């Protein structure tokens, strides 16, 4: 299976180009700093002689964890965009593909191999980094998010979506163009999610539709909401519900888990865009 050969090569490239090393070192710094920050939570309020309650501690820890994980998902999505955007275009520009694709390998195997290699990169980075962060938070504050596995699934899904889109761009555009496009679209989808939530708050059908459409067209924000939901304690969701619909507009809050149908849509979306990338590259003149 030559797709696996290409996948291995892609992974090897990112290792040799020291992407992993840089991510590892910076992530260790971030985890160390955030863990120190989390370790200060239990002593909050001690100065005033009013130690914080168990519920308050969970609320603060979960909110901070969501913010830290937003940065984490942001880094993950950006890394995926920057690794995927030049994955094919750079090899076309340098003529590497001429030497490789004159061999008995199909364009399908080449594109799918690239995708598998990039996806493996995301998994290898995301799973240990997020797990270590969550474990350390549990250790120092005693807060463990209610759905850690789902959280991993949602952030990895979000990265897979933007990665697949960037790979599609990479079949036609230079790495820089694909990278910038990927990031702008990612930002637009995030804004689209907020617009949709505001529509819900004010019961405005147009805004709600914009939000829904954006969640369907580029499901990064929809999956991010799933990640947020999986980090929130039940007490926080109950309190927010009591506060009314206004909380829904907060991009760092989600009252419900994404529907199973939506998750299925995301999987179909990824496979469809991957198929589009294969189709686009098969028609590419080398």
């Amino acid at each position, binding site marked *: 299976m030559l797709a696996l*050969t290409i996948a291995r090569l892609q992974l090897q490239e990112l290792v040799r180009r020291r992407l992993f090393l840089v991510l590892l070192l910076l992530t260790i710094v971030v985890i160390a700093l955030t863990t120190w920050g989390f370790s200060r939570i239990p002593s909050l309020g001690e100065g005033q002689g009013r130690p914080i309650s168990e519920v308050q501690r969970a609320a603060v820890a979960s909110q901070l964890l969501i913010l830290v994980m937003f940065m984490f998902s942001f880094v993950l999505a950006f890394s995926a965009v920057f690794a995927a955007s030049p994955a094919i275009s750079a090899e076309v520009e340098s*003529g*590497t593909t001429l030497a490789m694709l*004159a061999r*008995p390998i199909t364009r399908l195997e080449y594109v799918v191999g690239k995708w598998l290699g990039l996806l493996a990169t995301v998994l290898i980075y995301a799973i240990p980094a997020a797990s270590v962060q969550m474990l350390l938070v549990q250790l120092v504050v005693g807060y463990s998010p209610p759905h850690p596995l789902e959280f991993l699934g949602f952030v990895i899904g979000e990265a897979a979506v933007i990665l697949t889109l960037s790979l599609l761009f990479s079949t036609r555009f230079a790495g820089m163009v694909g990278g910038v496009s990927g990031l702008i679209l990612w930002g637009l989808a995030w804004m689209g999610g907020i617009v949709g939530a505001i529509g819900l708050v004010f019961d405005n059908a147009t805004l709600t539709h914009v939000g829904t459409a954006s969640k369907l067209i580029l499901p990064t924000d929809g999956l991010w909401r799933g990640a947020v939901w999986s980090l929130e304690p039940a007490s926080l969701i109950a309190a927010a519900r009591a506060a009314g619909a206004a909380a829904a507009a907060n991009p760092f809050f989600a009252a419900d888990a994404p529907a199973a149908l939506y998750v299925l849509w995301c999987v179909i979306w990824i496979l469809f865009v991957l198929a589009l990338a294969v189709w686009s590259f098969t028609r590419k003149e080398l």
Partner: protein
Amino acid sequence: MIDAPAIRTHELAKRYGSITALAGLTMTIPRGDIFGFLGPNGAGKTTAVKLLLGLTPPTSGHAEVLGAAIGDRAALRRVGYLPELFRYQSWLTAREVLALHCELAGIDRAAWQREIEDALAIVALADRGSGRIGTYSKGMQRRLGLGVALLGAPDLVVLDEPTSALDPVGRHDVREIIRGLGERGTTVFLNSHLLSEVEQVCHRVAIVDHGRVVAEGTLDELLGGDTVRIRVSDLERAAKTGLSRFGQLDDEGDWVVIRGIDSERVPELVADIVRLGGRVHAVEPRHESLEDRFLRLLGQPN
């Protein structure tokens, strides 16, 4: 299809929008030939190669490589290719690049080690095989590319400007490698704009210009004998015409040029002119080089 020619094309054409890169290429290259595909820059040589290797689809026409349709996987296993402009993965070592291509070409894993070391030895990179490509000079990359094209003893080797970026020693080495391939019975398709290179190694040549083959044949056929220029006076026009039995005649006034004449017949030609009443002032025999022929075909002043 063991008996099928190495390459057969029929009216193979490629257009990019309004630009015609290749305008109907029809040719047959038998097995074992060292075939020179010669033309000026932009003549369509690289396009022809990309079409033959399935890297880009033809606009019209069709072609067979080793008896199979373009892009056939089994046939591609038996083809080695050195592209004109390319870089290998800069973060791999030469041995890793060779191993990758062994894998892509479907070469039996047990044979990789020997294939890799043989290829490195042939292109004189054995002592640099563990170096990263990023540290290689252009010439070394070219040598490695040639080594990659030789992996697995292919039946057809396609070389696109193999000696560009090489120093004189490198060029000599490449010619020796090509001759070695010819002796083994490997078909070589050599894309080049370097006439001397083609003249030195090729059995047969096609000259391509503006996307069209303007001449094709063995070197002897193409060069078709020698040329002689004779300064002559007092010779009737009709008598001059009679000289065309010696070769292709060009009447340039004071000078008569006969192309494609067998040099042994020059004294006979001079005797004929004298017999017809002409006075011979000068005789300039000239061996036509491939370059002369090339420039003449391309309509350039010599």
